[in-house]
């Protein structure tokens, strides 16, 4: 190929010159000064130094010039950040569990036709789609689950009466007893063994089982009113009295049936002494304290007009028990319970209106009618 004359003219003065001066076109191309733009792409080439790097080297006159390696380019700030995050993630993330090779088509797979049994994904942004929070725990004053059995109700009445009697005897604020939600078992047992004299007054009605019990009960109840360290003291006292009551337990003839800790009143089924029922509730403060404590122990609520009517412990217990057996909604049920009507020979009470069918049945006509209808093919 004939070399370009123009290029030759630049470097090789004449064709007739010495052959050593000859430069091949490739080298000549290399040596030519190129515009900077055209060389930009070489900047990031792994095997080549960038232009700016070379310029810096030239300026500083060393192979390792100080300063940023590439102040005008390189990776952008976002790019660098992204790369860092990726690296961190890879470090943090545990190795993904090896994915089992699932068969592409499962033989047992059946496409669902209804939503039943399918996993529920997502929600409609209703409040009950979100889970409960810690704040949503409700601490009720009284028992959350009401007591509906007669025995435990009597137990509660007895316990309340003994407690109020104690508070009366010790001359302490009656309502402070409500700060003790539940007694320790030995304390409860002592309360259970206490008796209440019928027709007594509140401050003198209590009859202790023995001297020791009296001492420990008085000690415990003195801790209750108004002292911040009351529960701790009570526990200590409970521990102290535990030994005393151990001995008593052997003599006890009416052992509790179940010993589950969840059971109310430690598994005791009924009060031993019904004397508390005779106590009067005429004093307003005593009545309020009694009903407050009783509703705390049983979970039952006393409406104001009922509170006004109640004048003895018996009535309070009777009200709660009456609540258990609400008045029947049907008149027939109500009348059927009426003993006066039951005794009458000419009165019968039925749940439904009596029709001729019922009469036929009573008279024995129904069989004949049915037989006749069958015979005619109407039935």
């Amino acid at each position, binding site marked *: 190929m004939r070399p370009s004359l123009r290029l030759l003219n630049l470097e090789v003065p004449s064709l007739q010159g010495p052959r050593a001066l000859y430069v091949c076109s490739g080298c000549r191309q290399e040596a030519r000064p190129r515009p900077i733009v055209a060389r930009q792409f070489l900047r990031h080439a792994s095997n080549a130094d960038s232009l700016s790097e070379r310029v810096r080297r030239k300026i500083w006159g060393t192979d390792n010039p100080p300063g940023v390696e590439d102040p005008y380019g390189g990776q952008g700030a976002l790019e660098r950040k992204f790369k860092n995050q990726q690296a961190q993630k890879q470090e943090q993330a545990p190795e993904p569990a090896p994915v089992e090779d699932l068969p592409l088509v499962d033989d047992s797979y059946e496409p669902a036709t209804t939503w039943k049994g399918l996993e529920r994904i997502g929600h409609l942004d209703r409040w009950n789609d979100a889970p409960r929070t810690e704040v*949503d725990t409700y601490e009720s004053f*009284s028992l959350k689950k009401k007591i509906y059995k007669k025995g435990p109700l009597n137990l509660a009445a007895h316990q309340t009466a003994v407690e109020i009697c104690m508070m009366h005897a010790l001359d302490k604020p009656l309502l402070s007893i409500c700060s003790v939600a539940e007694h320790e078992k030995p304390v409860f047992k002592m309360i259970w063994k206490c008796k209440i004299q019928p027709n007594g007054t509140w401050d003198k009605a209590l009859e202790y089982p023995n001297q020791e019990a009296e001492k420990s009960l008085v000690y415990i109840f003195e801790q209750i009113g108004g002292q911040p360290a009351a529960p701790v003291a009570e526990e200590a006292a409970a521990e102290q009295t535990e030994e005393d009551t151990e001995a008593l337990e052997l003599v006890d003839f009416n052992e509790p049936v179940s010993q589950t800790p969840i059971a109310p009143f430690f598994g005791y089924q009924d009060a031993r002494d019904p004397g508390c029922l005779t106590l009067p509730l005429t004093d307003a403060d005593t009545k309020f304290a009694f009903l407050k404590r009783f509703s705390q122990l049983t979970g039952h*609520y006393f*409406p*104001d*007009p009922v509170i006004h009517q109640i004048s003895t412990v018996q009535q309070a217990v009777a009200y709660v028990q009456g609540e258990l057996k609400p008045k029947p909604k049907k008149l027939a049920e109500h009348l059927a319970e009426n003993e006066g009507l039951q005794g009458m020979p000419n009165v019968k009470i039925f749940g439904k209106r009596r029709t001729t069918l019922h009469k036929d049945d009573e008279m024995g006509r129904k069989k004949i009618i049915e037989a006749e209808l069958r015979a005619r093919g109407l039935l």
Partner: protein
Amino acid sequence: MPGSDAFRALRWLSRGSGGLLSGAETTTQRCLARSFFRSMATESQSPADNLTREVPKPVWNPEPVKATTYSFPSMEPLRQVEYPQNHLLMPMRKDLLHRAVVYEGDMTRQGTASTKWRDDVHGSGRKLHPQKGTGKARVGDKKSPIRRGGGVAFGPHPRDFSSGLPRKIYDKAWRIALSYRYKRGQLTIIDNEIVLPENATPYLIEEIFKVNNWGKDFGRSTLITERLDENLFETVRKVGHHAKILDRLDVDVKDLLETGRLIIEKQALDRILAQHSHDLDMQPRKALY
């Protein structure tokens, strides 16, 4: 003759009762004799019974009504408060309640229903065709109420439906409604404010209503607060099937009667009672000279 009958009776009485009239008590005799003379004319029953019986004295200070106050979320009975009998122990008057509820219903009617009469309809008043000569019935313009697109004859127009009720009756109705709740044991007075802990969700309200038997199965409940707490109201309204919540200014007699029970702040109750006892505070008018 009635006069002779009375005399016969008098004679019989003096004999039969063993000397009732012949006793030493001359005053009794005089009274009886006078009454018998009067009976000649009117034939009324003799007031002899009243003389021997003690006349019941009127009670000027009836015993106040006692109500228990509770702390809100825990429902712990705190104390007993007293209200006068003419606040919370009013006798039932269904007729007054009915009048109050109707009055409130009338008051709350929007009354904005509106239609256009032929003059109000947009359009021309041009006669559609000449009066005579077409063989058709005579017509006016397009906006006639018998034509499609025409005006509405006798349609509704915005108006005020509110009716009146004497204030004494309305105030009495408020107290009767509250008394009705009280007498049935459905008035729960909250001593403090009805508040929930921060970030509480409707789950908490549900739980409270379940434990206290206030929910849907027991006829729902109305909570009445003194001031409007947006967060509380929003939370409670999410469980609207169990609860209804109102602030005092929003409460009507109808709301008091609507659900199974009222759970009301004491402050709100006191203000309601104070604002609706005009008929009690009224003094008879005196002439001033």
